[in-house]
């Protein structure tokens, strides 16, 4: 079985992002970029499944600017066998990414697609679900445990009320939650070997997908600065404020 793992290049989680002066977006010039942590977990899970013998090949795929190659090399250093970059300078929104991935799935015919549940830049949490819908496949989102047996995957999901275990027929979509695994450090020799692994480059047009954004960003603003607090005289004043000012009770 082949596993496809989409990975996203995002601003590194250590970076404190700043809004551009013209409020058109977040300033990512000269900011450290890394693989989305949830995607790292997805790669790790796919590699573990291959190491256990449940899969034979792990293919990483990313969509975006040319520099996404670095992210794909990183995925191959962790253990992906080869990679595909869908190169475009256009701003990609979840639906466009899902369509691009569907085109890749049609071509590659994987038995399983493992994605991060969301990316830490836009926190959209949509691509996996949209891809499942476009493919008409089953989906298990927010996975904290994955077992693959033949044509079935048993997935434990993190849901609001606790844990839910479901079984789904393959091919299917799985999206990873934080506790699924702890990604390994890429070994230094594997970093070097990753350089020699196959990395294909395709353009959205070659896949027949129109990636034109459907949403327009009007304005991006920093969250409002925290206001200083006030000291209340007594409990009655506190309750009054909670009721009438904050309107939370």
């Amino acid at each position, binding site marked *: 079985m082949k596993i496809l793992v989409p990975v996203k290049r995002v601003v590194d989680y250590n970076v404190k992002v700043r809004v551009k002066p013209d409020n058109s977006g977040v300033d990512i010039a000269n900011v450290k970029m890394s693989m989305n942590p949830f995607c790292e977990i997805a790669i790790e899970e796919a590699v573990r499944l291959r190491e256990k013998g449940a899969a034979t090949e792990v293919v990483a795929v990313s969509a975006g600017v040319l520099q996404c190659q670095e992210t794909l090399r990183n995925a191959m250093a962790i253990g992906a066998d080869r990679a595909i970059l869908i190169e475009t300078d256009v701003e990609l929104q979840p639906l466009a990414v899902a369509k691009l991935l569907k085109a890749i799935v049609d071509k590659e015919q994987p038995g399983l697609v493992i994605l991060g549940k969301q990316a830490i830049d836009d926190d959209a949490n949509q691509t996996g679900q949209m891809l499942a819908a476009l493919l008409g496949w089953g989906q298990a989102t927010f996975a904290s445990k994955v077992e693959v047996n033949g044509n079935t995957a048993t997935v434990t999901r993190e849901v609001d009320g606790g844990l839910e275990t479901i079984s789904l027929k393959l091919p299917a979509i799985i999206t990873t939650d934080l506790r699924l695994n702890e990604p390994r*450090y890429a070994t*230094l020799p594997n970093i070097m070997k990753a350089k020699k692994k196959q990395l294909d480059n395709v353009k959205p047009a070659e896949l027949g997908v129109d990636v034109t954004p459907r949403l327009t960003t009007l304005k991006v603003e920093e969250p409002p600065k925290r206001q200083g607090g006030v000291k209340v005289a007594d409990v009655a004043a506190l309750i009054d404020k909670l009721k009438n000012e904050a309107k939370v009770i």
Partner: protein
Amino acid sequence: MSTYQAPLKEMHLLLETVAPLAELCELAHFADATPDTVAAILEESAKFASEVLDPLNWPGDQEGAQHNAADNSVTTPKGFKSAYLGYRDMGGTGLPMPADMGGMGMPRSVVSLTDEMLHSSNMGFGLMPMLTQGAIEAILLAGSDTLKATYAQKMVEGIWTGTMNLTEPQAGSDLSLVKTRAEPQPDGTYKVFGTKIYITYGEHDWAENIVHLVLARLPDAPPGVKGISLLVVPKFLVNNDGSLGARNDVKCISIEHKLGIHASPTAVMQYGDAGGATGYIVGEPNRGLEYMFIMMNLARFGVGLQGVGIGERAYQHAVVYARERVQSRDVGAPREPSVPIIRHPDVRRMLMRMRAQTEAARALAMATAFALDLSEAHPDAAERARNHAFYELMVPIHKGWSTEMSQEVAYLGIQVHGGMGFVEETGAAQYYRDARITTIYEGTTAIQANDLVGRKMAREGGVTAKALIVSMREFAAELAKSQHPHLKATHARLIAGIDAVERTVEFNLGNFNSNVRACFAGSVPMVKLFGIVCGGWQLARVALEAEKRITAGHADAAFYEAKLATMRFFADTMIPEAIAAADTIVNGAEGTLAMAESAF
């Protein structure tokens, strides 16, 4: 407590200026060291240092390594073994080693940076890879194919570790006094008898075997340094199939109680109490010290990196505290509320001294590493020789100055913390204690200084030192074209610094035969002078590139502006200290040696 962050941007800038990786990976020898591969290696090494090694640094210091008298074993602090296994599995041990030994063959310009990260995040841990690298190099340099296959291979993979056994109680800096004996056996092996002290990681619980490299005398050896041989003495003997055999007659009888590097066991090793430890000779008899000295340059270079590493860590730690600690009003705005102490001019002075010296020492280290790489890999023999001479000249300067400046940096790190720095819990004191050994081991600063004025300068008639002065003047001419105020100021200072270097080289060459005691009396100040001026030279190369990038409209202008500001500080504050040192070198011997020995 702060968290170590490897200065990756700075490191990349050095790989684009003083140690241009783009040039190295053009050479067949380093074809794999492409900028993108190296970026990924640095990234992963930085992650490991921040996430695994740095959190163990303070607990490792507090717990320390423990010797168990019952079985002469050593227990390292909690978490260190698994950190080592992680480091090994990551492939850390093979990074600089040749590809045919299963290593990655990365240039020293890259390995210097990953080694610095080890020492920054956890010097007590970093010593093990450093010493094992040395042991591997020794075997690769002169060992037989059997020794290479049996021992070096396992050490490259990190399965076994290595040690360097030089010092004995009566033989410290003076290795001609080594007494350990090696008696030849009919089967070609040797029986080794003696006591070795200060053996870093001589015993530990990380690996199943330890490969000791031991300096010893054969029965018929001539006296002094020409009668010392190098032997491999494994903790466990190795069977022909590579499996471990009987325990060898070598044991760790105690470990030292030290000022710093508590996590690193410093062993007293006893050889041959029960009939003799089996050893295998490396290379030819009586040439041990010669082999050791070829390697010694690399070991000294490594200790210089510890100076840079500990300086970086102490600086990062102090900056975090200086930003958080609110105390007193700004002298320039006495009516405003109290401010973080980083606002105070003297705290700024301390942080700048820490930062500027660390950056200059790192730049000098990288220029030295780059020369070593070219001396091995350049296709042109003349270029190889030229770079080798530069490397040889720079090693005592880099080792001597980087470790000495790290004392001041770690000292200032405590000073920035005030009383809280004297309290162990803040962690600033550990850097001060750990740094202290670096000016001592692998040759004290005086030994480096002797090497500089004698072997590396007077003995060759100052050829390399004079070539260095020419190179610095050539660069200064280029720097003179810049109109940037910080670089104009730097140019003036640098010229004065180069003049001072020239004056002392002439003094040394002119007096070495007639008044050698005067030359040696000023040798340590000479290390400082060369360190600061050469460090300033390399820093200025970086600053010049920074100015170009700002002019070209680089988006990360703030980073490059900081380079120029750091350069300005270094030029105005550090270079004058170097020039003052020149006076001491030329005129200080009278006073240093005037007093009668009996008057002390």
